[in-house]
């Protein structure tokens, strides 16, 4: 293992067996076959294969190799089902790879997907000690971090309440605090940032930066690309179990963004309105709204600095009660929390209008 690396992933593959979708008749035949051959199932199980004969193998990870240098924050991105959680499960030894090898230097702390490594019947306090013990900490070590943990998680008043009575937010906060404050050399975090509220997300990202500043290594899975952009030193992009690329955060994030929008986002870039406004009552009826990039592709995600073409499709009618010729004036702003463009434009066409804005 190279001295500068904290994690080395070497040709790692993982095969899962999932049930093949079958017709009802074939399914029934299979149930019968399985019922009559328990021994075959036991043998298949022991051989490490699927226990239900007809299942099909799925490569959740396919020959993935990359390295994470010590003290860096690596962002793991990719669409749903691309194998991100599977990779973290292998790194944290929850499940074994089907082939390949992983080498990790130091203690590993992890916060995987939904749910926490808590015992539901035990109190928060007891769970903190138990999780500490699991990470190989002594009682004194745990005591040293105890106040920081409950402070960060904000569960002070519930310390002696069984975890099963915690709200889901409290559970996630406590789980994050336990894995981050017990000073693992490698910290693995799967999509927890999407669970808590905005304030918790901000604090946990701050804590993650602190952790790496102490020379420890973090691997973080998130769909929050702006968090990835602002916190990660490098990014690995998984696509259908394969490593698409690894390296520079800004570059790979935008590659990922571009590829994913072209593949499947065309529809999301268009919004159609139906019966939004009863047309016999008002002269203006909005039919659809689309956003384009400068290549005339409909899309919904845009990078900073990219021009955005917004198109509104509408119908201008002339109801009987209307005395003047209808016209539309567009005074708008685009952007959620702050306007990113604004238009003041008198629209004269009666069918549609397009205007160009710039993300800034």
């Amino acid at each position: 293992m190279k001295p500068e690396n904290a994690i080395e992933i070497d040709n790692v593959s993982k095969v899962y067996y999932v049930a093949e979708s079958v017709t009802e008749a074939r399914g029934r035949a299979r149930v019968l076959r399985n019922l009559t051959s328990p021994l075959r199932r036991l043998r298949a199980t022991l051989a490490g294969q699927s226990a239900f004969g007809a299942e099909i193998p799925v490569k959740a990870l396919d020959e993935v190799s990359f390295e994470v240098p010590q003290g860096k924050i690596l962002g793991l991105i990719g669409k749903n089902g691309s194998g991100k959680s599977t990779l973290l499960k292998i790194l944290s030894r929850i499940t074994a790879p089907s082939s390949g090898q992983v080498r990790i230097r130091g203690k590993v702390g992890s916060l995987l997907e939904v749910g926490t490594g808590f015992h539901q019947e035990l109190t928060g306090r007891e769970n903190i000690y138990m999780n500490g013990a699991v990470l190989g900490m002594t009682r004194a070590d745990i005591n040293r971090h105890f106040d920081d943990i409950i402070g960060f998680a904000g569960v002070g008043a519930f310390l002696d309440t069984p975890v099963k009575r915690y709200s889901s937010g409290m559970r996630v906060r406590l789980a994050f605090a336990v894995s981050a404050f017990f000073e693992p050399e490698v910290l693995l975090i799967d999509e927890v940032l999407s669970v808590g509220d905005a304030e918790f997300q901000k604090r946990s990202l701050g804590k993650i930066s602190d952790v790496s500043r102490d020379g420890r290594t973090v691997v973080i899975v998130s769909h929050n690309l702006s968090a990835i952009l602002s916190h990660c030193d490098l990014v690995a992009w998984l696509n259908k179990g394969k490593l698409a690329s690894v390296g520079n955060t800004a570059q790979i994030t935008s590659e990922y963004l571009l590829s994913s929008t072209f593949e499947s986002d065309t529809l999301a870039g268009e919004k159609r309105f139906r019966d939004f406004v009863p047309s016999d009552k008002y002269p203006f009826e909005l039919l659809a709204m689309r956003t384009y990039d400068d290549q005339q592709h409909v899309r919904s995600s845009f990078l900073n600095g990219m021009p955005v073409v917004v198109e509104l499709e509408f119908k201008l009618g002339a109801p009987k009660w209307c005395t003047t010729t209808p016209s539309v004036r567009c005074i708008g702003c685009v952007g959620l929390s702050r306007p990113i463009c604004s238009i003041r434009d008198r629209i004269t066409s009666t069918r549609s209008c397009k205007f160009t804005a710039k993300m800034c």
Partner: protein
Amino acid sequence: MASKTSSDITVIQPPRGWSFPNLREVWDARAILLNFVQRNFNVTYRQTIGGPIYAVYTPFMTMIGYTLLLGVLFGAQEGLSVPYPLFSFCALLVWTLFTNVTQNATTSLTQNTNLIQKIYIPRLVFPLIETCMQLLTFAIAFVVLLLMMVVYAQPFLWQIVWVVFYVAVALVFSLGFGLLFAGFQARFRDMSYLVQTINRLLFFVTPVVYDSTLLPAPFNTLYIYNPMALVIEGMRWAMLNVGEQPALIPTLSAVGVSVALLLVALLVFQRLEPTVADVL
């Protein structure tokens, strides 16, 4: 699945063939194990009124039931050198230890799905936790047996030290039995029913509530090759001086069977362990 090659580098690899669990790793996790045992013990009795009374509840109630049924109605007391309640309770203690260890070890992985899928702990720790818990429960019930012996004015003899040996055999046999099924239980939830059924059948061929001298030939010489029968006969001799100490050959056979079962079970467990989280 994984091994520490140097002081702090963990190598994670696919499992290769048949191997024994990394016992060093389990030993390193002993603090976790003790932690869990202590916590589970608290949890088990936390939301109850009776608290640790439940440790003796099952064998004690079973003893009362059989005392009423066999002792009073069917005259099982006849020909016994000790009171029937002592005679049956002494055996029910180890029998309860056996059934609880086998059944709880079998379901130990499925019961801890939550933890197993979130944090890595050597998986062998979970059946071991159950074993330790049941050993504690046994210890409490054993104290009750001692009290009962005082109440019945039953003398304590030197051979009581043999209890350690017989309990050890029972533990090895039960753990082997439970471990054999634990990995399969993760995939096939009907394994625990199978274990229950086997236990129930074994109950009939083991002299737990009846006197083995009543067995007809050829069963009177064969039954002792059931390791649990040997343990129970041994316990009765050690505690209550009933009958004689089991002979050498059946004793060696019980030890051999138990150890062999445990070794096979460890191999099977390790075979299924690395991917157990995928199917839980």
